[in-house]
């Protein structure tokens, strides 16, 4: 437990350092915020365009899709905001700078996660939170204490799954050694699948999205549960379990990666 406490307080200190640096680059930040905003809006606009032609996609209405969209963007914002370090793992491996982390008495994975924060991730989080709030207000949801609790748990679990997915994907740099993050980027683009109801895809793709790259548990199943939709809604309860499993798998992958790390450069 002390490791966690130590990590958190360290993380906060590192974040403060980075915030200080960022304050120096205000222009940068504002431009990126504008771009982020535009990206989100165009995504929403696309959904609006589709639904202006047809009222339902496979039985799902616009606000339900917007809600799922929000979940995906929220988790993306979490990575960008807090754990941007995952994208830098490849660089560190390629340059040999990972050595520094290995030599410190702290879990390496955690050090990697804490390496960088990106404020426009916070913008994503805000916007997607608004999206979800609006969507929920337009939908009929049977709220009770348990459901609110589950919702918070879902947000947490979804974020964990997304972060672990991203970290594991970036671990491929241990084997590919090029420092190029294209595999992680590929996994990231798969999030597109998570924005829409799972049912529109063929079984093969559904299988991948449930068992291999579990985007279904980031948006689809939690949404099913919250909206009490259909017989599979109860699968949503598995989301925290999936989160735990992804943590374990990520842990193993990272450890394996360290074994083949060859610390280039002198």
């Amino acid at each position: 437990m002390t490791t966690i406490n130590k990590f958190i307080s360290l993380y906060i200190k590192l974040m403060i350092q980075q915030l200080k640096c960022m304050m120096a680059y205000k222009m940068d930040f504002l431009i990126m915020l504008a771009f982020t905003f535009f990206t989100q809006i165009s995504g929403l606009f696309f959904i609006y365009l589709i639904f202006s032609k047809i009222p339902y996609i496979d039985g799902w209405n616009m606000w339900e899709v917007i809600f799922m969209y929000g979940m995906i963007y929220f988790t993306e914002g979490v990575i960008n905001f807090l754990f941007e370090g995952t994208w830098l793992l490849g660089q560190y491996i390629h340059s040999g700078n990972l050595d520094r982390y290995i030599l410190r008495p702290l879990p390496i994975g955690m050090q990697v996660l804490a390496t960088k924060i990106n404020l426009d991730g916070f913008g994503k989080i805000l916007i997607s939170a608004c999206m979800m709030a609006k969507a929920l207000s337009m939908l009929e949801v049977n709220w009770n204490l348990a459901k609110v609790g589950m919702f918070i748990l879902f947000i947490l679990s979804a974020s964990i799954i997304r972060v672990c997915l991203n970290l594991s994907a970036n671990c491929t740099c241990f084997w590919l050694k090029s420092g190029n993050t294209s595999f992680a980027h590929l996994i990231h683009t798969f999030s597109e699948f998570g924005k829409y109801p799972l049912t529109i895809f063929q079984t093969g793709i559904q299988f991948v999205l449930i068992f291999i790259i579990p985007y279904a548990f980031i948006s689809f199943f939690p949404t099913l549960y919250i909206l009490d939709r259909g017989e599979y809604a109860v699968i949503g309860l598995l989301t925290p379990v999936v989160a735990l499993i992804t943590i374990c798998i990520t842990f193993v992958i990272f450890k394996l990666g360290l074994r083949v790390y060859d610390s280039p450069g002198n």
Partner: protein
Amino acid sequence: MSLIEVQALSKSYRNTIKEPGVKGAFKHLIHPKYEDKVAVSHVSFTVERGEKVAYIGSNGAGKSTTIKMLTGILLPTSGKISVNGLDPHKNRIENTKNIGVVFGQRTQLWWDIPIIESFKLLKDIYEIPGPMYKKNLEIFCDILGMEQFIHQPARKLSLGQRMRADIAASLLHNPPILYLDEPTIGLDVAVKEKVHEFLNYINKEKKTTILLTSHDLADIEKICDRIIIIDQGTVIYDDTIQKIKGELISERKINALIEDTGNVLEEKLKNLPVTVIREDTNKVSILFSQNEIAAVTILENMLQITGIQDFSIEEPGLEQLIKKVYNGTFLIS
């Protein structure tokens, strides 16, 4: 049990073989080929508490690879390492609490924040108790002369300043073992001296074991008492510096500056087991073996001639000895 035990340590890498040009790149895309390169092969040695060991070899000999395995960065292909009873790769976190590491080419300091802030962060990471931290900081600042730049960020420091800060940073938590990989590369003479002084102090006061790789033999002579030479991945020499200099190499050289422009000196020493080389009109070198004749005897003979202006006795430098080790003219039993 020794503090550091290395047994039959080996490390090999798989490299891709690629032919040059577009055609080669294309072939590589379809059918990649690999070859195994051995960096370290069956290296064994032990280090006791308080020793100061130099670990040297030519570029690519396997020095850095060994250090990286000792510090837990690399996983050995085979063999065993035990540092203070721990396996550095398996028990990584425990082991890192016991070691300090300085890489000459890289810094462990945070780049954009003042050095003192980096130190404070390290204090938290290593859980250094307040009084110990304060005391160490004071002493280190004093010996290494860090007062003037301790409030600057690392990126603004000169190489000499950064290196001093790095060495101090590595020792704040009083580790029993300190690894240094090319710590004095690019440093000027004054800073090197400070570094030597500091390392000797640490070893004397805290019995810190030091394992040092360097190309700078001055470092080694000033600090270390033991030398391990590695070449092409294997250990080819492991013994004290005294031994390599004293007992095993008996060659000595007397350099003399004389007025004699004729052959008077050569005539005088004709019957002694020495080789006289006339370097210049006034400079003479006299080569001899300590086993065959004492320097004193030669000097006695020399001083019978007038006109000797100056002389000095040279011991073989470590560099020449090591060169001899490399080209095999120096046999090690």
